[in-house]
C-alpha cells in the first residue's frame, strides 16, 4: 500500500509539474486507475484541496528564481516580508525563530494560544503559505535549507527520525561514545551560517521537544510533495533513459525501489 501510494504521489506530482497548476492535477486524480485507494490513503491532501480549493499560480523550480523574484503568496493574508528580509540578510537564527512563529500562526488561533502546534493541525495549513516559507529558505540558501529539502532527506532514510536528525545535524555524537547520539543544544550548538560544513536541511528547525509527529506531518504535507521528483534521479542514474522524466517514472511504477516505512495512519 505504501509503495502504491508513493507511486501515485509521484505520478501526481509529475502532472503537477507538467501542468503547473494544481487544479489540473486535481482533475487528473480521477483518471488514475487506483483512484479509490488513492483517495483513502490521502485524506489530508484531499481535505486540504477542498478547504483551499481556489486556483493559484505556482512559481516553478526554485533554482531558476533569484531571491527578489520570490512571490510571497499567502492564503491567510500573512506577511512574509520579515522572514524574507531576515533570510536576505543572512540572519539565520532570527529567521529560524520567525519561521517557527509563522508555522504556529498557520496552525491557527488555538496553536497561537498554546504556543506550539499539535501535529493534527498541520493538515489545515495552506499549501501556498508553506510553499512560500519553503521557497524563501531554499532561495536564500541555494537550495540547502527548507522543508522540501528536509522532506527529501527524510524519504532517503525511510522516515527514520534518528537517522534524519543525524543527517541534518540536529543530533550529534556523544563525546564519550560516538555510537550514541544526543540532541544538539539549542540555540548555542546550532550552525547559524550557510557554511560548507553546515549539513543540508539543517534549517529551519522543527524541534523534537514534543516528539517527531509535528515534523513528520509537516514534511508529509502536500505542499512539499513536489520535492519527491528529485528523489528519483539518483536511484535511476545508471540508466541512460534517466533524463527522460516519463521513462524513469514508468520504471519507478514497475519496480518501486523500497516500501516507505513512514506511518500514514493520519
Amino acid at each position: 500500500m505504501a509503495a502504491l501510494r508513493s507511486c501515485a504521489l509521484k505520478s501526481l506530482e509529475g502532472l503537477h509539474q507538467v501542468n503547473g497548476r494544481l487544479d489540473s492535477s486535481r482533475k487528473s486524480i480521477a483518471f488514475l486507475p487506483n483512484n479509490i485507494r488513492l483517495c483513502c490513503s490521502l485524506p489530508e491532501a484531499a481535505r486540504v484541496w477542498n478547504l483551499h480549493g481556489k486556483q493559484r499560480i505556482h512559481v516553478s523550480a526554485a533554482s531558476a528564481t533569484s531571491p527578489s523574484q520570490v512571490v510571497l503568496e499567502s492564503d491567510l493574508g500573512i506577511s512574509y516580508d520579515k522572514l524574507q528580509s531576515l533570510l536576505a540578510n543572512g540572519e539565520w537564527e532570527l529567521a529560524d525563530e520567525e519561521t517557527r512563529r509563522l508555522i504556529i500562526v498557520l496552525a491557527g488561533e488555538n496553536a497561537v494560544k498554546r504556543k506550539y502546534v499539535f501535529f493534527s493541525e498541520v493538515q489545515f495549513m495552506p499549501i501556498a503559505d508553506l510553499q512560500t516559507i519553503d521557497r524563501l529558505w531554499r532561495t536564500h540558501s541555494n537550495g540547502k535549507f527548507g522543508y522540501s529539502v528536509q522532506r527529501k532527506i527524510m524519504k532517503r532514510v525511510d522516515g527514520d527520525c534518528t537517522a534524519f536528525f543525524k543527517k541534518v545535524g540536529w543530533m550529534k555524537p556523544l563525546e564519550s561514545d560516538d555510537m550514541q547520539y544526543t540532541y544538539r543544544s539549542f540555540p548555542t550548538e546550532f550552525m547559524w551560517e550557510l557554511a560548507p560544513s553546515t549539513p543540508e536541511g539543517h534549517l529551519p528547525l522543527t524541534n523534537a521537544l514534543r516528539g517527531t509527529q509535528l515534523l513528520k506531518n509537516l514534511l508529509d504535507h502536500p505542499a512539499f510533495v513536489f520535492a519527491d521528483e528529485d528523489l528519483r534521479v539518483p536511484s535511476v542514474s545508471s540508466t541512460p533513459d534517466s533524463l527522460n522524466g516519463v521513462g524513469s517514472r514508468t520504471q519507478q511504477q514497475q519496480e518501486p525501489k523500497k516500501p516507505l516505512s513512514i506511518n500514514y495512519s493520519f
Partner: protein
Amino acid sequence: MFKADMADANIFIGSLIFVEELAQKVKAVVEVEKDRLDAILVFPSMPEVMRLNKLGTFDMSQLGQSKKSSIFKVLKKNGKGPNFEENMLKIVRTLPKLLKLLPLDRAQDARRYVMSLQFWLGGSSSNLENFLKMIAGAYVPALQKTNIPFDDPVNFLDVGIWHPMAPRMFDDVGEYLNWYGTRKDVNEKLKSPDSPTIGLICQRSHIVTGDDGHYVAVVMEMEARGARVVPIFSGGLDYSSPVQRFFCDPGTKKPLVQSVVSLTGFALVGGPASQDHPRAVSALRSLGVPYLVALPLVFQSTEDWLESTLGLHPVQVALQVALPELDGGLEPIIFSGRDSRTGKSHALHKRVEQLCTRAIRWAELKRKTKAEKKLAITVFSFPPDKGNVGTAAYLDVFASIFSVLRELKNDGYNVDGLPDTAEGLIEDVIHDKEAKFNSPDLNIAYRMPVREYEMLTPYAKALEENWGKAPGSLNSDGQNLLIYGKQYGNVFIGVQPTFGYEGDPMRLLFAKSASPHHGFAAYYTFLEKIFGADALLHFGTHGSLEFMPGKQVGMSDVCYPDSLIGNIPNVYYYAANNPSEATIAKRRSYANTISYLTPPAENAGLYKGLKQLSELISSYQSLKDTGRGEQIVSSIISTAKQCNLDKDVDLPEEGVELTNEERDNIVGKVYGKIMEIESRLLPCGLHVIGEPPTAMEAVATLVNIAALDRPDDGIYSLPTILAESIGRNMEEIYRNSNNGVLEDVELSREITDVCRAAITAFVEETTNSKGQVVNVFDSLGALFAIPKKAPWVAVVQKTQFASASRDKMRTLFEFLGECLKQVVANNEVGSLMDALEGKYVEPGPGGDPIRNPKVLPTGKNIHALDPQSIPTVAAMQCAKTVVDRLLERQKAENGGAYPETIALVLWGTDNIKTYGESLAQVLWLLGVEPRPDALGRVNKVEPVPLEELGRPRVDVVVNCSGVFRDLFINQMNLLDRAVKMVAELNEPADMNFVRKHALEQAEKLGVTVRDAATRIFSNASGSYSANISLAVENSSWESEQQLQEMYLKRKSFAFDSDTPGTGMKEKREVFEMALATADATFQNLDSSEISLTDVSHYFDSDPTKLVQSLRTDKKQVSSYIADTTTANAQVRTLSETVRLDARTKMLNPKWYEGMLRSGYEGVREIEKRLTNTMGWSATSGQVDNWVYEEANSTFIADEAMQKRLLETNPNSFRKLVQTFLEANGRGYWETSEENLEKLRQLYAEVEDKIEGIDRT
C-alpha cells in the same frame, strides 16, 4: 554553589525533598542561614527539612518530634483511613477561609503558609508570581513598606482529564469523550470507541506549569499511531481513585481503556513519600488492564544518562522503578529528558515511539480475538547442546508447553497440528532426540536471507563489530540465517539462540560482554516482523535476551535487550524463587513475569549405606546396655567409613578402646549427620505448569513452613511448641544436636517425626480420596468449629508432647491451612491467559515460599522489594548470629586468630529472600550498624565502638553478582561508604583490619586511604557473571589459571560512593591486593531448593583457589557456606556442603529417580549436577574423590541405569560421559583404568549413535 546562593538569599523555598542524602545537605546549608533569612517555605518533604519552615511567627520546628504530631504521622500510615490525599487537599482549601477570621498575627502567618501551598500547588506562572509577591511583600523588610498587590490563588482542577487540544480540563470522562468526538483535527476512526484507547497518568504540576512537552509528545505519538488517549492528572500523590473514576465507564463500570501508561514514574499511591501498594493493586485489579510505568529523567541530564553505563540514576531506580513494580507496573522505559538550558522536560523521540508502540500492542491483546492472536513461545538451550533444548530451572518445559497449549486450544486459540503428546512436541522441535537419523540440527522453521535480515533489523550493522558481516557462522547456513522451531496454527515454538561465545576462551575473557550475534538478532526479527507475534512467551528461568549488553536500568536506543524485544509484549514464565533475575527480565526486556512453583519438596531420606547406618543406630539405642554396644559401635564406625563420613565426623581407628561416653558421642555425631542428610529438603522431579502439587506432596513444604517461628505474626513453630511442652528450649536442642549430644539428637528426631505426623494427619483431613485438596475452607471450618479432637491433637496426644499448647497449635494450623490452599492453587495457566488477553496480572513477591508464604499462590507478576528497606532489623539480627558462628569456626581452624579479611559474595535473590541478611553480614564484619531514616529507609550506617564490638573489625572483599548490582546499587553505595568510613576511623591496626590494609595499600598505590579502601566489586555495567560457568559448561578452558584470569578481568569493577552516578570502574590492582589478604571465602545459600551444585553461579563466583594464588604465602584458605534455610542455621565448610549436597542429590536414588520421571529433561539435570561439581573442583578444589567415584558407580557402572540414560537423552548422556573423562583428565578424579576404559568406549558409542553411524 548552593551555599553561595544561600548566603545572599532572602527567601528559601523547597518542595518534595524526600531523599535523605539531599535532605541532610539542604538542612545543613539552610539551617545556618535560618535566622538571617526573611522567610523559609518548605512544602511536603522529609520532616527535618519541613522543620526549617519560618514565616514570621509560624514555624514547624516541633514537627515530628512528639509522637502525636501530625503530617509526618499521616505520611507514615496513609491509606489506613479513606483517602489521605484528598483530605489534605480539602484542608488546604478550607483552612485559609477559616484563618482569615482570626485577626491574630500568628494566624496571619499560618494563613500565608497555607495560601503559599495553594499557590504552589496551583503551579501556573501567574500563581507563582502572586506567591512571590505575597511573601516578599509580607516578609522582606525592604519591601514591607511598599504595598505589593497580589491576587488570590487561582485554583485549577486538582484531579481531572487534560488534553493539549481541549479548551478546558474535564472532571468527567463522559464529557471528555464527548468533546473528543467533536474534534475536527482527527479522523473518524480514531474517535470511534473501537480504536485502541490508552489511559495516561500525568502529574498535575507539569500540566499547570506548562512543562508538559513530554506529555504532549506521548499524546501525539499515540494518536498518530491510531490510539485514543485519556490523559488524567492529579495534584495529589494518590491516583487510585482517579484511575477508577476516569478510566472506567461511569455507568457500566467497565474499563474504557485497554492499557494504562503512567508517565509520572511514581508508585500509584504515595509518590515519593510513602506508598500503599495494596491500595494500588486493588485499584489496578478492578481496572484489569496492563499497567506500564514510564519514567522521566529526574536526577540526570539527557547526556548524563546516555553516557552512564548504569543508565538511570540509582536514587531514581529505587524510587521510580523498584516501587512501581510492587504495584505490578511494567516496562520502565525512559521517555523524557530535561533540557539543560530551560530545565524543561523534553521527549526522547525514539523512546516515546517505543513506549507508545508497546502500550498499543498491549492494548491490542485486549482487542484481538483469541483465534487470530499469534503467540511465539521461546525456549532456551543452555549450555548450547541439543540435549539442552528446553532448559529451565525446575521445569519440565515441553510437558509444560504441551499442557499450556492444550488449555489455550480449549480456550479458542488456534494451535492446529499440535501433536498428541509432549514427546511428539519435543520430536517436532528438536527433530529427533534419539539421533537415530543424522540430524545435527534442530527443526528449521525459517531461512532468512541476509538481505531480508539487514533490511528488517536496523541495528544489524552494530553487531558487525563483534561478529563480522552477516550471516556469520552461528544459526546460519552460510547464506541465510536459520530460525529453529516449529509452528502450530498461530503458535510458534522457537529455540532462542545462545550467546555464541561460550566455546570461545578469548571472548569469555573480555571484561565486558559481547553483543548478540546475527543469528540471535535474526530470531527476534523473525518473531516480530515475519511471524508477526502479538505476544512473546519466554518459557522458564531463564534465557539470555535480558542479559545482553546495555545499561543496567533505563534502556537507551542502543541497548540490545530493548532493540531485540522490539515492540512485542513479553510474557515470561519465571521460577517463583528467583525474584532477582526475574526483576532483570522485567527491567531490561520489559517482561510481565508470571511465577511458577518449584517442584514440591521432599525430605532427602536415606539410602544404601546411610540407611544401614540409621538402622544400626536405632539398634544401638535399644541394645547399648545389653553388652552388644561395643560391637554395634564398631559396625557403625566401619559403615560410616564406607559412606565416607570420616571427613565429617572424627572416627576412631578400628580396635581402639572406647568408653561408654565416647561411644555415645560418636554415635550421636554420626546420627546428627544422618539426620541432617535425611531431613534435607529437595525438590523432587520437575514442575509442570498447570499441574499443581497434590496436598500430600505439599506435606514436606508445610512441615518446613511450620518449623519457623514467625514472631511478627504471633505464630510459634511446631518444634518450639513441642519443646516447650516438655520444658525444653528448641534452640538449645538444636545446638546440642549439632554437637552430637545423643539424647538431643534423638529428641530432635522425635520432634521432627511428630511434626510430620501431625501435619500429615491435618492434610489428610482436608483432602479427598484422590489426594486432592477438596475444600480447605469447609473442612477447616468444620475442624475449627467443632471442639472435638483436631487431627494434630490426636497425633500429639499419643506422644511425650501431649501437653503442647492447644491455642498456639490452633493458630499455627490455621496459618498452615491457608498456606496449603495457596500451595495447591492452580493459577499459572490462568494468569498467562490473563496476560495474553491484555488483563492486569496481579503482582506478588518472589522468594522462598517457606520463609515467605506470600510468594504463594504462584501465577503472579514477580516483584522484588523496596531496595531501601533492607537490611531489616530482623535480618541484622540473623546476620550477627551467622557472622559470630563464622568467626568462631574460622578462629577454631586458624589457631585462635581472627581472620583479617573475608572474601564474600552478595546475591540478589538471597538478599531479597532474607531481607538483606548477607548485606547485613558485611556490615557486621566491618562492625557497623545501619541506621534507618524516619521513613524506615536504610541510607546510613554508624560504627559500633570497638569496646562494644569486642573484636577487631574484619576486612572484606565483596563480590556483588551482576544482578545484585542492578537491583541494589544503593546498597553497594551504603557498603562502600561503610568500608571507607571504617578505614578512616582512628583505631589501632590490630583492631581494625580494614584500616590496616587500606594504609598499606594506599602507600603501595600512592593513593589516599579513602581510595585504597575499595572493597565493593562487581562486573562492568551490563555484564553478568565471571563466565567461569560458561567455560566449565562448555569445557572451553585450558588451565585453572585461565579461569582465575576471567574472574579478575570480569569482576574487578568497583563501585565508588564518592562518584555514585558514574557506575562501575575497573580497579583491578586494588582488587587483587585486597583478595590477597583474604583468609577465608564465604557464601550464603538462600533456599533449600537451590544448593551448591544445582546451579553454576555459585562456583562461578567462588575465588578460593584464586585467593590462594594471589596470597604471597600461597596458603590454602578456608572456605565456608552459611545455610540459614532451616530453623537451625549452620555455617559449614565448603567441602562439607559439597558432600552433603552430593549425598542428598546426585547420589540419592530418591532424587535421580524423581528427575528421571521427567525423562529427557531429567537426564540433563543429572548431567548438570556432575558438571557443576567439577566446577567446584576447578575453582575451589574442595570436592572429594569419592564423590566422582560414587557418581560413576551409580550412573555408569550400573549397566541398566547407563542404558536408560543413553536412551532417554543421548546428547546429555554424552556430556555426562565427557565430564567424567574431563574430571579425570584435569586431575580432579583418580580412578581405575577399567572405569576409564569403559567411559572411553561409551563415549565412542554414543558419539556414533548421535552422528548416525551404525557400526553393527
